[in-house]
C-alpha cells in the first residue's frame, strides 16, 4: 500500500514541522504560560515521533512524565511567580543577536557533518521488533545498576526539593 506509506511519511514530516513551530513558540512567546503550553504540544509531538520510531513504551512514558508531571510542575511554578512576568517586562536579554549568529554557525556546521557522514544503517535492525518485555528485562538485567542509581537520585531530588521549597515556618508547639 504505497499510498498509505507515502501519506504516513509526509504526515511524519508534518509532525516534525509542527514540533519545530511549537518549539519556536516556546522560546519566543512573551507569555510564559503559552510557552509552557507550546512545550506540552512539542512534547506530545515528540511522542508521536517515538511511535514512528517504534518506541511506543517510551512514547507513553514521555506523555506520562513530561506532559503529566514536568509541564504541570512548570505551570505550577509559573502560577506561583506569575504576577512578576507581566506583559510589559522585557522577555529576552541583550545577547539574542550574538546567540542567533552562533547558533546558525552551529546548525550549519553540524548539519553538513550529518549529511556528510555515512551512517552505518543496518536494515536488519530496522526490522527488529522490540517488545516492552525486552525493555523490562534489559532494565532489570544489564542496566539494573544505573536503574538503582536513578532511583537514588530521584529520592535525593525529592528530599532536596522539599527542603529547598519548604518555608521556614516558625516553630509551633505541637
Amino acid at each position, binding site marked *: *500500500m504505497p*499510498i*498509505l506509506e507515502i501519506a504516513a511519511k509526509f504526515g511524519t514530516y508534518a509532525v516534525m514541522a509542527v514540533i519545530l513551530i511549537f518549539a519556536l513558540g516556546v522560546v519566543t512567546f512573551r*507569555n510564559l*504560560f*503559552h510557552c509552557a*503550553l507550546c512545550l*506540552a504540544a512539542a512534547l*506530545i509531538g515528540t511522542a508521536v515521533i517515538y511511535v514512528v520510531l517504534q518506541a*511506543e*513504551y517510551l*512514547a*507513553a*512514558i514521555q*506523555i*506520562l512524565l513530561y*506532559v*503529566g*508531571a514536568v*509541564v*504541570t510542575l512548570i*505551570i*505550577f511554578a509559573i*502560577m506561583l511567580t506569575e504576577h512578576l512576568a507581566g506583559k510589559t517586562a522585557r522577555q529576552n536579554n541583550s545577547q539574542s543577536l550574538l546567540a542567533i549568529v552562533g547558533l546558525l554557525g552551529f546548525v550549519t556546521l553540524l548539519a553538513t557533518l550529518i549529511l556528510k557522514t555515512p551512517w552505518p544503517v543496518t536494515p536488519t535492525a530496522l526490522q527488529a521488533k522490540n*517488545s*516492552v*518485555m525486552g525493555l523490562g528485562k534489559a532494565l532489570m538485567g544489564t542496566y539494573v545498576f544505573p536503574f538503582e542509581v536513578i532511583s537514588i537520585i530521584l529520592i535525593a531530588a525529592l528530599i532536596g526539593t522539599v527542603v529547598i521549597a519548604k518555608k521556614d515556618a516558625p516553630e509551633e508547639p505541637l
Partner: protein
Amino acid sequence: MIRSWEFYVDMIFVTAKAWILSLLGRFLPDWIVVLASITISGVVILCLGPVIMMYLTLLERKVIGRIQNRYGPNRVGKWGLLQPIADGIKMFTKEDIVPANADKIVHLLAPIVIVVPALMIFLVVPFGERMTAVNLNIGLLFFIAVSSVTILPIFMGSWASRNKYSLLGGMRTAAQMISYEIPMTLAVVPAIMMSQSLSTNTIVLAQTGDFDLHWFIFTPWGIVGFIIFFLCATAECNRPPFDLPEAESELVAGFHTEYSGMKFALFYMAEYMNAFTLCGIAATLFLGGWQGPFLPSWLWFFGKTFLLICVMIWFRGTFPRFRVDHLMGFAWKFLLPLTLINILLTALWQFTSNLTAWLWSILILGISLWILVKLNRTFVPEKRHYPLES
C-alpha cells in the same frame, strides 16, 4: 466450523463491521478499505462517547433523585428519556460568555482539548471480545499516560479565565490529580504482574477460568487493588467526595466558573466520559472485563461498567466532601503505602496461590491496614483561630 447462535450474538458488532468492510472491498482500492476500517471505529467511538455521557447524566439525576426520595426528571419523553437532548439544545443555544480580561485563545482551546484525551481512552477499552478499537501492546500505559494529560486543559481553563476561583480550582485539581495518579498507577501494577502484559485485551484474557469467573477481584490483592483503583478513579474524575476542585460552596464552580454554553458542556462531557472510561478500565482490570457466563461479552462489559458508575453515583449521594489536607494525606500517607504492600503481596502470590497464601495475605493486609490507620489518625485542634484581616 459450526458455531452456536450465542457466538453470533456475541460477535454481532464485529461481524457487522467485517461485513461492511468486505462490501466496500468489492469496488474500492485497499487503502480506502483500511481508512474506512479506522473511520468506522472512530465514528462509533465519537458517537458512543457523547451518547453515553448524555444518558449518564440522566442516570445520575434519576439515581440521585431516588436516593433523595424524589423522582428526578420525568417530563420530557417517557421516563424523561429525552431530557438529555433537551439539555443539549439548551446548551447549544445559550450565550457564550468570555471574560474581558481572559486569554481568549487558551480560553477557547481548553474545553476542546479536554475532550481529546477523554475520547482517546476509549481506544483501548475492550468493550467485548475482539471489540477493542486499537489493540495496543501498551494499552494500559496508554490509558495512564493519556489520562494524565487531562490536567493540562484544566490548567488552561483555570488560568485563561483570569478568575481567582478558577485559579484556585485549577491548582487544587492539579495537586489532587497528580497525587491520586500515583496510587492509581501502582494499584494497576498487580494486574500487570499477574497477566504479564500491558495490553488490556491480554489482561482480560488472563482472567479466564471456570464459568469465566476467574476474575482478579477474587484474590486478596485483587480486592485491595480494585478498591484503591476505584477510589483513585473517583478522585481522578473529580467526583464527590473528592470534588474539591469544583467545590461550589468554596470556589463557585472551580476551574469552569467562567464557562457557559457549549464550552461548559464540553467540560461536562469530558468529565462524564472520564467517569465511564475509568469504570470501564476498572472492570477490565479487576472484574474480568467482558468475561462472564451465559450473556454476550459486550453486555457483560456494559453491565459491570454501569454497576461501577452506579456505585460512584451512590458515593455522591452519600458522602460529604473531604477537607484539603485530608484529601492529600489520604493519597500520600494511606493509599500509597498500601499499594506498595499490595504489590509485595502479588509477588508472593505468584509463587503460591493456595489457602495458606490467602491466610497470609489477609494477615499481612490486616496488619498493614491497622498500622496505617494508626499512623494516619489525625486530631482536630481544640480551638481554631481565624484571624480577621482589618
